[in-house]
């Protein structure tokens, strides 16, 4: 048996699976510390379907906790970025174009230093050790706790990033270091920004990962603990501690893959309604449609491969108001305080959930507390919700034909069974825990990232070798051989090595073989 858990901003959902069968599902409030919410979810699962902790073979956790920290510019540590590249790159210094609130939240400091490589591996300028020492002293003085290091052409030659990392570790042993060649691909600004985001999350990742491991141990579960990555595959918790940025797209990826699994639809729009927002993505042949060109996270341009998702401020906790005789819903939300503030729980704030209960669409809290709301008002509010979501689906649609829409997430009770512009609306079983299901059915990947000499005319052969190796690694890691596909191939010529040396990165992904116990 496996357990899939989704830690969202509002709710922590969990499912217990045996093979393809969902044995139990739960939904509980996300706690500020993340872990006590997970502990509640595990207890609740066991109450619903008794199991021996030792019989759990794996626990998969998907979380939007890290990306939310960036979007909310909260829970981040004081972070600096050191770029090696002077005298070039000065016209576009580190952190250029970053939003002010995020810069303030990480007490950002950017340093431009000498160093970096040309495309052919020769140096742009040598490292200036006194300069690095001055930076180290300044970092210490300003209480910086995490540092991102980037260097021009580090995907071709990572030596300088590694050397500066070692120097800073020596001077500032307690500071976290993230180097850009381990985070991103060619494209200095985007790679550097992704590295800064990773750096700003390192302390939070430490706390959360330690908490997760402890929580499971307390529950008597000693199975491997995985976190979902951007592409829907799994990483072990130790990796997540160092590369929290790799979890960024896992929320929408899990919700869309969960929706595909539950609904059986391969081509559709997926609407995931949570407590605060509704997120709309598009499934094509069962895979989330990727965002193109600029993927901006919290206002920062990055080159992550992420699903294309559009969010609108409609969720179960959205505030309902009457303005100039018009009912409005959202975009602000009571969020995780739903159980204190919503009227069905005895609170004073009218939320979207109150409308759903008043309309008899949901049995949450005490319906008598919303019985007095005028039925025309309720209808107007729910119509406003349906219209906003339909408009968002419409914006994601790229052909003039109506698309089927799959509704998932606890908040989808707010939506009607028909939406303007939708070919049909599907609300699959277990819809409210689709993200946790997506985490539990996560795929497993195999990657090859190595320098190959490529003799003239031998490129296809070399790529085939690399692809086979990646597939073999995915299978060895537990992927079903019939399901493994190559999802990414990247070549970076290493011009300074003889023999047409090329860094080849190939990634293969397949379905995890499901246990039948």
């Amino acid at each position, binding site marked *: 048996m496996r357990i899939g858990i989704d830690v969202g901003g509002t709710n922590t959902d969990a499912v217990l699976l045996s093979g393809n069968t969902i044995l139990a599902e739960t939904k509980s409030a996300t706690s500020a510390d993340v872990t006590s919410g997970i502990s509640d979810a595990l207890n609740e699962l066991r109450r619903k379907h008794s199991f021996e902790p030792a019989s759990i073979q794996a626990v998969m956790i998907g979380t939007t906790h890290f990306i939310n920290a960036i979007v909310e510019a909260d829970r981040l540590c004081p972070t600096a970025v050191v770029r090696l*590249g002077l*005298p*070039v*790159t*000065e*016209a*576009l210094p580190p952190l*250029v*174009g970053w939003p002010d609130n995020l810069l303030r939240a990480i007490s950002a400091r950017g340093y431009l230093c000498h160093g970096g490589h*040309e*495309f*052919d591996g020769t140096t*742009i300028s040598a490292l200036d050790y006194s300069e690095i020492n001055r930076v180290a002293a300044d970092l210490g003085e300003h209480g910086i706790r995490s540092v991102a290091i980037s260097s*021009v*052409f580090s995907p071709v030659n990572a030596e300088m990033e590694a050397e500066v990392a070692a120097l800073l570790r020596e001077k500032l042993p307690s500071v976290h270091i993230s180097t850009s060649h381990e985070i991103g691909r*060619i*494209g*200095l*600004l985007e790679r550097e920004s992704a590295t800064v985001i990773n750096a700003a999350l390192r302390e939070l990742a430490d706390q959360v990962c330690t908490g997760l491991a402890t929580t499971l141990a307390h529950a008597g579960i000693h199975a491997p603990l995985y976190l979902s990555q951007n592409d829907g595959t799994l990483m072990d918790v130790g990796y997540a501690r160092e590369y929290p940025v790799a979890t960024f797209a896992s929320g929408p990826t899990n919700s869309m893959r969960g929706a595909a699994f539950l609904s059986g639809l391969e081509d559709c729009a997926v609407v995931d309604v949570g407590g605060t927002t509704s997120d709309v993505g*598009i499934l*094509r042949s069962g895979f989330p*449609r*990727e965002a*193109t*060109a*600029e993927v901006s996270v919290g206002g920062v*341009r990055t080159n992550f491969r992420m699903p294309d998702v559009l969010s609108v401020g409609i969720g179960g906790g959205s505030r309902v108001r009457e303005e100039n005789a018009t009912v409005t819903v959202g975009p602000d939300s009571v969020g995780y305080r739903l159980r204190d503030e919503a009227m069905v729980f005895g609170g004073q704030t009218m939320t979207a959930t109150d409308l759903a209960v008043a309309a008899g669409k949901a049995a949450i809290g005490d319906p008598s507390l919303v019985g007095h709301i005028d039925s025309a008002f309720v209808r107007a509010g729910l119509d406003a919700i349906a219209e906003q979501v339909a408009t968002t689906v*419409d*914006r994601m*649609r*790229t*052909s*003039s034909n109506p698309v089927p829409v799959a509704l998932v997430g606890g908040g989808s009770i707010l939506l009607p069974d028909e939406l303007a512009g939708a070919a049909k609306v599907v609300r699959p079983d277990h819809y409210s825990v689709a993200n946790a299901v997506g985490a539990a059915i996560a795929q497993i990947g195999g990657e090859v990232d190595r320098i190959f000499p490529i003799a003239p005319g031998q*490129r296809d052969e070399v*790529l085939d070798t690399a692809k086979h190796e990646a597939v073999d690694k995915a299978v060895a890691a537990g992927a079903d051989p019939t399901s493994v596909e*190559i*999802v*990414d*191939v*990247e*070549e970076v*010529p290493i*011009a300074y090595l003889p023999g047409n040396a090329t860094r080849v990165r190939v990634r293969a992904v397949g379905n995890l073989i499901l246990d039948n116990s």
Partner: protein
Amino acid sequence: MAFEITPDDLGDLARGAALLGTGGGGDPTIGRTLVSEALRRNGPVTVISPDELSDDSLIIPTALIGAPSVLVERLPRGTEPVSALQALERHLGCKATATMPIECGGINSTIPLFVASQLGIPVVDADGMGRAFPELQMETFAIYGVTGSPLAISDEHGHTAILDTGDDNKSLEGWARVLAIKVGGVSYIAEYSMNGAEARRTAIPGTLSLALRLGRTLREARENHRDPAEALSDALTDTLYGHGESIFTGKIVDVERRTVEGFTRGTATITGFDTDSTCTIDFQNEFLVARVDGNTRVVVPDLITVLHLETGEPITAEALRYGQRVRVFAIATPQMMRTPEALNVIGPSAFGLDEEFVPFEQRTKATVL
């Protein structure tokens, strides 16, 4: 006729310039960030029509030369293009009244804006390529009698060189390329200085505003759920280009790409959805020839663009990735680039391709659309 470029225009300009870049010309988003910072400091830049130039005005075009795959890492210091222009001014003994793009596709649509913002001079709404090309002699300026020489080239240290190869523009390209590689694979130049009368005679007019307009067309198509290909075709009908259409859709299954002799060269392979059809695109910085199942469909100087299938966003050659779902969209080149003297310089043979130039709209349609 004259108009101002503000930071709000830069998104559309970068998108349109990426389209006209036909895969090359360098990542315009880098140029966009450069210009956006400069406009924030110095205020808007004025763009004037070639018709507004006096006959004796001095226009010094400015540009970047090098491999786009290098530029994305080796970002400029910021002093290089102005330093090149000023070196040429010193050599000529007079000041530029305006600058102009030599290439409206890719980052070179934005370098003159970056220069103009720093120097407080206007930018001429015209260029010498009507798209992007990989080499300096591939200019309507050169084809119709303006020489690239003398050329000034600058690096980030403020080191400059003046190159003068007389009326041999191909040799000028060779010299400048060697220097650009020598200083790290990307460098900045000022060349093809000309007066107002020459600009009116040799430049392709209105191409900067065209880039803006096509960028806006793609954005609005997405906002209004219009098929981006159809919207582009419509927008092109009343321009010098006249015609554009989709020639292939599919998924990228291979990208072979390397940096050689100062260029990004390679081949992308796209397989059609639910068919056995394959489209290959060869590139030298820009997309040069598109073949479907081995048959040539579009060849230079006609424009080959690759658009993201669903959103219509143009994809540059360095951003092509395995697995992307794309549309190949061809655009007819303006008539002044299809003349026999133009084809000698920018036709298939100039790229070593053993192909005859046939306007793509005259070829039989491939079966896969």
